[in-house]
């Protein structure tokens, strides 16, 4: 495979990963934290109404996990497509 087409494949794989992660990012913060907060507040975990928990705690934890998942996946992609740094 030529370098050019491999770079295209790498970029497409990257974009598809980005979309997946950004969808999770959106659902957790804007979805659970804002749009559906009232419905989720009917459920409680411990003393937290669930929607309130997402808005003030849960979204942040998810963001951290998302970034490290991305780092892990991208490092693998870099290697797989031979574009990793020395």
């Amino acid at each position, binding site marked *: 495979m030529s370098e050019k087409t491999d770079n295209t494949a790498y970029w497409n794989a990257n974009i598809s990963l980005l979309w997946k992660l950004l969808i999770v990012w959106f659902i957790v913060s804007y979805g659970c934290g*804002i749009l559906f907060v009232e419905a989720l507040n009917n459920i409680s975990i411990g003393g937290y109404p669930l929607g309130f928990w997402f*808005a003030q705690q849960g*979204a942040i934890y998810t*963001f951290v996990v998302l970034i490290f998942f991305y780092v892990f996946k991208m490092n693998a992609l870099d290697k797989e497509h031979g*574009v990793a*740094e020395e």
Partner: protein
Amino acid sequence: MELQYLIYLFVGLSFVLYIGIAIWSKASTTGEFYVAGGGVHPIANGMATAADWMSAASFISMAGLIAFMGYEGGMYLMGWTGGYVLLALLLAPYLRKFGKFTVPEFIGDRYYSTTARVVAVICLIFISFTYVAGQMRGVGIVFSRILEVDILVGLGIGMSIVFLYAVLGGMKGVTYTQVAQYVVLIFAYTVPAIFIALQFTGNPLPQIALGSEMADGSGYLLQTLDKVLVDIGIKEYTEPFNNKSMIDVFAITIALMVGTAGLPHVIVRFFTVPKVRDARMSAGWALVFIALLYTTAPAVGALSIMNLVNTVNGKDGSGTEYTQMPSWFKTWEKSGLIAWYDHNGDGKLQYAGGKALVGKPKFDGESRGSHGERKVVNPNPKAAPVGNAKYANELYVDRDIMVLANPEIAQLPNWVIALVAAGGIAAALSTAAGLLLVISAGISHDLLKGTFAPGISEKQELLAGRIAAAVAVCVAGYLGANPPAFVAQVVAFAFGLAASSLFPVIIMGIFSTRMNREGAIAGMLVGLTFTMGYILYFKGIFITPMAPNTPDNWLLGISPEGIGSIGMLLNFGTAFVVSRITKAPPAEIQHMVEDIRIPKGAGGATH
């Protein structure tokens, strides 16, 4: 030891540390001055990014905002952390691969246009000065109260410290100072939070304590708080959209997230790591360090409002006599950030829903009322009992004091109070330094070296950078002495402007090979003009507002704080349309875009 001496000691020691680091890490090349030589470890860089970015607003104001807003405080929490996902996924690795010194430099090269670069510098300078004004106001608040000096003297001390490590050490000095400042500020933030969480719930982890049961067995903390607030005529703490509509919360969260990802002093921090891989990792670490404070803040907010209500209204809820109020109340009253007007004339303080005063307190000089309180001349005539409250609200509390006063309200040991003082100062100084540095780099590297005097030597450029930093410190000091509005509000504007101007052009520069010079410039100008215009129209910074700042007047019900999200959309839209009706960018630019998408071959930062 007495509190005041402990504060001098803690704050003094932290200053010695910062200055020592500045001397140790003095920058001698432009590479060290702009990007710390490009060799910062991702974890250290994450810490520096966290300190750079967690400003006086995060440290001093945010928990206070949450305390008075309840659920809606979540928009700050999500907004100011969610942006790091965008940074890590969409910006940091590519800008690192690009491998230059500044954000305008990327925009200038990518859009093959000096005009685009200059427009970007103007955006950057505008954003940074707006933001730094808030920081300097933070420095002023902390110093005047904590060191008990005049606000101008306090500002002068703060400016000198920042001057020393930003001008001398450049990015290298700032980076390592910020690592130290992060440690100081996170320690200062979490220690009192743990103490207070223990007091209320017996659980030391603030993140868990907020969802735990009260130590006195009165049920879950949040439910107790909801009830306590409803009893005094304030809406439930956990109930969404009490003060703001859903669309406004949505728009503000977008503006804050995208703004975070577009703030030049944050972006530039990813130029300082050795590799593309490190830039991704570094964004992750930055968010971990930020999350430590941000997941603690909701507990601090909730516990501080609970503490305040309990202390003021007393055990039986009938109020506390002014003469019986603890000393923190009187010190803050002296600084004008707390005021009491005895609406029902019983000599007791009561806190409830509604406003005690019309606007901010206006004091009758230093004259005292019959109970010894500072006389306020602007009581709210409508401060009658609200809803099912037993009495009118008599208390004015500035939100900015909640974090600083909290340890005193909770009667924590003096060293904790001193620690919080040092932390607040560290937060404000680290962000101010980061901002001053991007301003200085914008002027010396982008305007001077990149545009008006390309022939200058590295030595001359370095000198120009230091002079620019020095001038910027002075301007920042002036803005701190004459702040346009209160801390968090000013900072929200900087985010709106970053969201509507810089973020879209950087994203399009990476993800679209078709985006051209004309599109980018038009997009930036439209986004910036719209957002600034909207904010000035309703808020009237430096001018008189042209319309009352009320939801009825807002576009789609979006407040000036959230309008950056619309500005961002306008930027994207304009850029798309203009780029499609003008010529595609030259082939070498399209190759450059393809090249920055591939991590391989990222060298050190060059100019």
